[in-house]
C-alpha cells in the first residue's frame, strides 16, 4: 500500500537526546518540552550560497508546518542578521507530508526538521561571520504551541582548499529533481495538472497514485481529494480549487509526490519540484 501510516496512539515520555549536529557549526540550543532547536551551518564560503539551517528536533507525534501549511497552522519564520543585512527565510524546505485530522489536511513535517535560509556570502569576507537570528515556529500534536528562539553562530570563513565534504550539500538539502514541462488549467471548480511521463524519469513501472502540494495556499482545496485521471503519456491530476477567489499565477509551483508500481511488484514513492505553466 502507499506510504500512509498512522501516528502512535500513545506517546511515551521521551527524553530528548540531541542527534549529532547537522552541519559543522551549531548554535546553543533552545529547548522546550517538545523541541530542541538549533541554528546550524557549515563554514561560510566567500561568494557562495551558504545554507543556514533552523533545525527543529521534534518530540515524536509533534509536527511543524511546510511553507504552505494547508488548511491550518502556519509556516516557520526565520530572520538572519548578518553584517548589517536582514535575511528572511526559510527559503528551502523539506518535502512535506499530508497531516490528516478528521479530514482537515495540513502540510508539515515530523521528526528532525531542517529549514534552510540561504545566506549569499560576499566574494570577500574576513575570517569569520557572526550570525544572529530569531525564529518563530508552530508545533502541534493534539494542541498547537507557538515557539520562538534566538540563536547566534560564529561561522568560520573557509579559506584555501576546503575538505571535500563541505562542497557537497548535506543530504537533507538535496532537492528533488525538477520538472519544468508540466501544464495547468483552471476552471471555477478545479485546477488540472498535466505532467508528461517522460518528465518523471526513466524508472520502470507505472504511476498508480499522485498528489500535488502547492506552494501557495490560495490555489487548491487542501482537504479535497485529488483525482488522477487515466491518460496516455501523461499524468493528469484534477484538484478541486480553493474556496477563496483565484489569484492568477504565472506558474503553479509545488511538490509532486507519486507512487510507482514497479514490474517486480514493489511500490516506491518519488518526489519532484514542479513549476507548471498555464496550458495554452
Amino acid at each position, binding site marked *: 500500500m502507499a*506510504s500512509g501510516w498512522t501516528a502512535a496512539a500513545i506517546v511515551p515520555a521521551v527524553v530528548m537526546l540531541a542527534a549529532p549536529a547537522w552541519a559543522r557549526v551549531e548554535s546553543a540550543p533552545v529547548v522546550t518540552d517538545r523541541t530542541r532547536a538549533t541554528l546550524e551551518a557549515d563554514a561560510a564560503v566567500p561568494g557562495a550560497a551558504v545554507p543556514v539551517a533552523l533545525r527543529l528536533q521534534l518530540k515524536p507525534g509533534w509536527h511543524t508546518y511546510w511553507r504552505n501549511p494547508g488548511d*491550518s497552522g502556519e509556516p516557520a519564520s526565520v530572520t538572519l542578521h548578518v553584517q548589517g543585512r536582514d535575511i528572511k527565510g526559510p527559503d528551502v524546505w523539506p518535502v512535506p507530508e499530508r*497531516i490528516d485530522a478528521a479530514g482537515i489536511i495540513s502540510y508539515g513535517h515530523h521528526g528532525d526538521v531542517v529549514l534552510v535560509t540561504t545566506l549569499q556570502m560576499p566574494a570577500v569576507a574576513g575570517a569569520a561571520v557572526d550570525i544572529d537570528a530569531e525564529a518563530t515556529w508552530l508545533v502541534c500534536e493534539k494542541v*498547537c504551541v507557538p515557539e520562538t528562539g534566538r540563536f547566534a553562530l560564529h561561522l568560520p570563513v573557509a579559506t584555501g582548499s576546503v575538505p571535500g565534504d563541505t562542497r557537497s550539500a548535506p543530504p537533507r538539502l538535496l532537492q528533488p529533481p525538477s520538472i519544468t514541462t508540466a501544464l495547468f488549467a483552471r476552471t471555477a471548480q478545479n485546477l488540472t495538472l498535466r505532467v508528461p511521463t517522460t518528465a518523471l524519469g526513466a524508472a520502470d513501472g507505472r504511476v498508480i497514485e499522485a498528489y500535488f502540494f502547492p506552494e501557495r495556499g490560495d490555489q487548491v482545496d487542501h482537504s479535497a481529494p485529488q483525482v488522477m485521471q487515466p491518460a496516455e503519456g501523461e499524468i493528469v491530476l484534477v484538484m*478541486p480549487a480553493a*474556496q477563496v477567489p483565484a489569484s492568477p499565477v504565472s506558474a503553479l509551483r509545488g511538490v509532486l509526490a507519486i507512487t510507482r508500481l514497479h514490474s517486480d511488484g514493489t511500490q516506491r514513492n518519488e518526489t519532484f519540484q514542479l513549476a507548471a505553466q498555464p496550458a495554452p
Partner: protein
Amino acid sequence: MHSALFTRRTSLLALGGATASLVLPGTALAKPQVGVSAPAFNGTGSDGKAYKLADYRGKTVVLEWTNHECPYVGKHYRSGNMQVLQKDAAGGGVVWLSVISSMPDSQGYVSAAQANDLTKARNAAPAAVLLDPDGVIGRAYDARVTPTMAIIDGKGTLIYIGGIDSIRSTDLADVPKAAPYVKDALRRHAAGQPIAHPVTQAYGCTIKYKPTA
C-alpha cells in the same frame, strides 16, 4: 477517497487510545457558497435554549467558531479584539453566535457551565454559545479551523465566510496591522454596501471534529 500518499493521520483523543477513523462520506466537506442560502442549523446554547437560523429572519447573524485553548483564538481574545467586535455587533442589532464544534475530551470542548464561565472570564459578549460536539453545524459550514467566521444576512443568505483578519499569526501585535475582514464586512453590510472580500482564507487550529464513520 483520500489518498494515503505521504499522509500522517493524527489522533484527536486527548488520552490517546485508538487512532481516530478518518474516512469521510462519499464527497469532501460541504461547501457553503456566498450569495446563496446559508446552511440551516438547529443548535443548543450553553444556556440550554434552542437556536435555529430560521429564527433570525430580518437580522444579520455572525457565527464564530471558537476553541479557547487555541493560540489563534487566544490572540483575538487576549487583545480584546473579539470582544470589541461582539459588542459592536450587538449594538448594531447583529446576532453573534459563538460555536464550539470540538468533540468531547478534545481541545476546546467545554460543558455548558464551563462555556458560561469562559464568557464571563474573558468578558465576551456573544448572544449565545452553541455547543456542537457532534460537529454538525461546523461541518455544514465547512469550518476547518478556529477562528472561522460566517455572516448571514436578514434573508438567510451567506454574505461572508473565512478568517477574522488577514494576518496568519499568533502575535497580538499583528491585530492592529491586519485587514479586519469581519469588522469591514459588518460595517459595509450595515451601510448597504457590497462586501469587498466576501471569501477569505481562515487561519487557526484545526477544529477537533468527531471523526465521521
